[in-house]
């Protein structure tokens, strides 16, 4: 059964400079997914406040989901892709 991706979890999480959550530019989606993968990896090496970890983790989920949508592949969260991109 198809489940529309739920981006609401990430919707209210503050963004980084230049980050646009609903971009459809493949290079941008790839870029931000990689950025948050690097950031969450780096957080493992420092001792950040928990809310900081949670914020970046939620953003990473969002971008992995968007990347999966653009690739037309099953999403990282297990949902199917298929909602129309703007």
């Amino acid at each position, binding site marked *: 059964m198809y489940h529309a991706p739920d981006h609401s979890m990430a919707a209210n999480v*503050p963004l*980084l*400079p*230049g980050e*646009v959550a609903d971009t459809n*530019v*493949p*290079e*941008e989606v*790839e*870029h931000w997914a*990689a*950025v948050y993968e*690097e*950031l969450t990896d*780096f*957080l493992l*090496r*420092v001792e*950040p*406040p928990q*809310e*900081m970890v949670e*914020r970046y983790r939620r953003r990473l989920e969002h971008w992995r989901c968007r990347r999966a949508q653009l690739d037309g592949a099953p999403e990282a969260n297990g949902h199917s892709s298929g909602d129309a991109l703007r």
Partner: protein
Amino acid sequence: VTAAGPPPAARYRHEAFPYAGADDFVARAAPLIARAVEAGDPVRVAVDAAKIERLRECLGTASASVAWTDIRRIGGNPARIIPLWRQFVARHGSRDRVWGFGEPIWPGRAPAELVEAQRHEQLLNLAFAGVANFTLICPYDTDNLDPAAVREGHRCHPFVADEDGPRPSADYPGLDAITAPLVTSLPAPGEEPSEFTLDRAGEALLRSHLVALTHQAGVDPSRADDLALAIAAVARHLGRPRVRHLVRVWREAGSVLAELRHLAATRDPLAGREWPAPADGAGRGLWLANQLCDLVQLRSHDAGAIVRLHARTL
């Protein structure tokens, strides 16, 4: 396809494109884009939203074949622009010619941003030196830019394309000279900075201070976290062993600034502006900082490096 004349030789072309206001820009750029689209070449146009709208109207159905990017959104921190072009070129690596229109220098850039955007223009010559199928055309608004910025545009590009077509730039000094390390000093802080030691106690005080500054500025406290994380990334990847680094923090012109000094020198001019290789520690620290901050300034000399981080609060 160039402004006039024969097709370019099979090598990277980096052209300044001076224009006199938006009408002139659209009148001269639209035919170039249309001809590239007609030839089946990939085209990305990274200019401001107003010019994108004008170009799309002018190009009609051909505009659907162009990748459009609002440079004011992507390129506020100019160090984030090269990866955008790198990805676009890589995506079309097998094509005979790939076209980019990118306008990183625009009227109203803050002085520190302008310096870094000009550095970006210089380093584009190095970043894509080996990419033979890429032509990057950089518009300069001669009606609204400071004449010194236009002159620097001529110096940063091997070619200048005016209404008569592209020609070699008489002001371009060659790749080695244009990519030599920046020797200009960073301006002194506008107010007395607060200093923090980067140890456990100092980092806690630093974060509290950053939260207070962003709160006073009325921006989301997450910006304090972003800046604190950028400081940590720079300190970890460029810090010298067994040195307890200090960070200076102050507010200036709508930004919170943090500066780390006495860091390990880096000799890679593109450090932080390209995706970092696995073993590239300095590049990784600067790259992370560039994603987290509105602007990152690096001055690296034999004696060491200085990194200044900007988080905008306006």
